[in-house]
Every structure is written in structure tokens, then in C-alpha cells.
């Protein structure tokens, strides 16, 4: 509701779903940010012939899930733990994307306010 309202009031500050972040990722973090680590290797992903969209930071969980399935098939209901682990990883990735979006939006709002203040200062001088 609130996000929809802000997208209606300031559509220029609402990042498009296809646009990448425009600000420096480390801007505003005095203690820095931990980089995301990629656990599955390129050779593993290529050997498993993963889709390109699946070669993200949760690929190791996906590979474990697929391994479990291929071992337990046709009783793949035994792979509930691996499946849940993979989906939880994907969920956390999605939450991180939402946080990135919110950060981008707030930085853009801040930029808009700074521009307005600078303009006001110019006029007053």
C-alpha cells in the first residue's frame, strides 16, 4: 500500500523492474558490506547443465536438491529437506532484492530532496 502510493506520487523515483542499481553499492555503509559468495563452481554448473537463470547464488542448494532427487527417484518425497533448503535460499535472495530496491528508492528520494534544496539555495542567492 505504502509502496504503491509512493510509486504513484513519485514514479520517477520508483526503480523499474528491469533497471540495475545506479548508486555505488558501498555508499552509506561505514562498516562496509560483506560480498555474496558463490559456492557452486562454474564446472559443476556446466556439468549439471543448469539454466542460465538458475546459476545464481543458490545454485549449490539446487544441485544438492537435484542430486537427492536423482538418488531417491521415484520416492522423491524423501527430498523434502533439500527442497525446503533450496526454496529458503531463494526466498532470502528475493528479500535481498527487495531490500536493494528499497535502498535504491530511498537514495533517489534523497537525491530529489537535495536537488530541490540546492535549487532553493540558488534562487535565494
Amino acid at each position, binding site marked *: 500500500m505504502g509502496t*504503491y502510493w509512493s*510509486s504513484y506520487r513519485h514514479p520517477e523515483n520508483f*526503480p523499474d523492474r528491469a533497471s540495475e542499481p545506479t548508486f555505488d553499492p558501498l555508499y552509506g555503509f561505514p562498516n562496509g*558490506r560483506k*560480498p*555474496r559468495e558463490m559456492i557452486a563452481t562454474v564446472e559443476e554448473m556446466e556439468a549439471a547443465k543448469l539454466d542460465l537463470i538458475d546459476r545464481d547464488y543458490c545454485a549449490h542448494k539446487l544441485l544438492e536438491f537435484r542430486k537427492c532427487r536423482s538418488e531417491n527417484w521415484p520416492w522423491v518425497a524423501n527430498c523434502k529437506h533439500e527442497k525446503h533448503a533450496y526454496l529458503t535460499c531463494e526466498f532470502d535472495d528475493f528479500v*535481498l*532484492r527487495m531490500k536493494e*530496491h528499497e535502498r535504491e528508492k530511498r537514495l533517489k528520494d534523497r537525491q530529489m530532496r537535495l536537488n530541490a534544496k540546492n535549487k532553493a539555495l540558488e534562487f535565494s542567492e
Partner: protein
Amino acid sequence: MALLRSLVRKGLSSSTGKNITFQALRSAGGWNKDFAPGPFPKTEEERRAAAKRYNMHPDEYQPYPDESYGMGDYPKLPDISGESKDPYYNWDFPEHKRNFGDPIHAHADAIGEDRWNISAKPKIPYKTQILVSIGFIGSLIGIYFLTYDFTYYQPVMPKQLPANGVHYTFEPAE
């Protein structure tokens, strides 16, 4: 005259009980240049000759207006569909509700018994049909354009793939 002769020939074959199919110009003998209607009749003599060719009284005979219909001298018959004709009358050809020598409507294949009933009042008037169709589809299109500027997507950034560079979490670096 040749047109009627071909129909008579086919009419005789129906006496054995076989269905005759003279729908439009799909005759079993193929197309003949004599079957084609003549040019638009301009003089009185041409009108009478055309009426005689189509087995009509000269007072009844009325060609299509000479305005790019391309019908030539083919008569303009009243629009009565096959369904509206009397089912209990003793037609010569009951399957087509037609008597021997009757001129055939120019669009007989469209207003036959199992096709469009041109002489009946439609349950929903044609104007209403058109307006409702255009109105419904038009309103759907209108809603698309009205809401185009207010589209809202899930508030997420694109998916982060390691092949496209370095990405960070929100935790402090060690």
C-alpha cells in the same frame, strides 16, 4: 436461358430421390460462360429480354443498381430466407423450398435454410450487437491506456547473477 437449362437438367435428376445441390455456382457440370449474367440492361428491350431469360415477369424484374455490385442484369429478388418460407406448401423441390423455374436469389447460399435467416427479426438487434461488441472490447482497450501510466511492478531489483559482477549482502564486512 442456359442457366435455367442447367438447373432443369439437375432438377430431373432429383426425381430419383437424390439431393440436388445447386448452391450458388457449384454445379456438377462446371462453369460455362453462358451461365454468367449479361451486362446491366439500359434499354427497355434489354430489360424485357433479361426478364425472359430469368423467367420473370417484366414488371417484377428489377436488376441490382449499376453501382459496382458487378451483378450485371441478375435480378434483385426480395430477401426471404429459406427458413421463412412456408414448410407446408407443396414445393416442387421441398429441400430447397423452391418451385420449378423460380429464379434463384443472388445470395441463395447465404440465406438458405441452415444459414442466415435474413427475413427474421433478430432477437438482439444488429445495432445493439455491434455496439456491445465494440463497446466491450473498446472499454478493455480503454482501461489499458488509462492505467498505462499507473502500472506497478513487484518492488524488487533484477535477479543478481554472479556472472554479472560482484554483489553484496547487507551485513557488515569482516
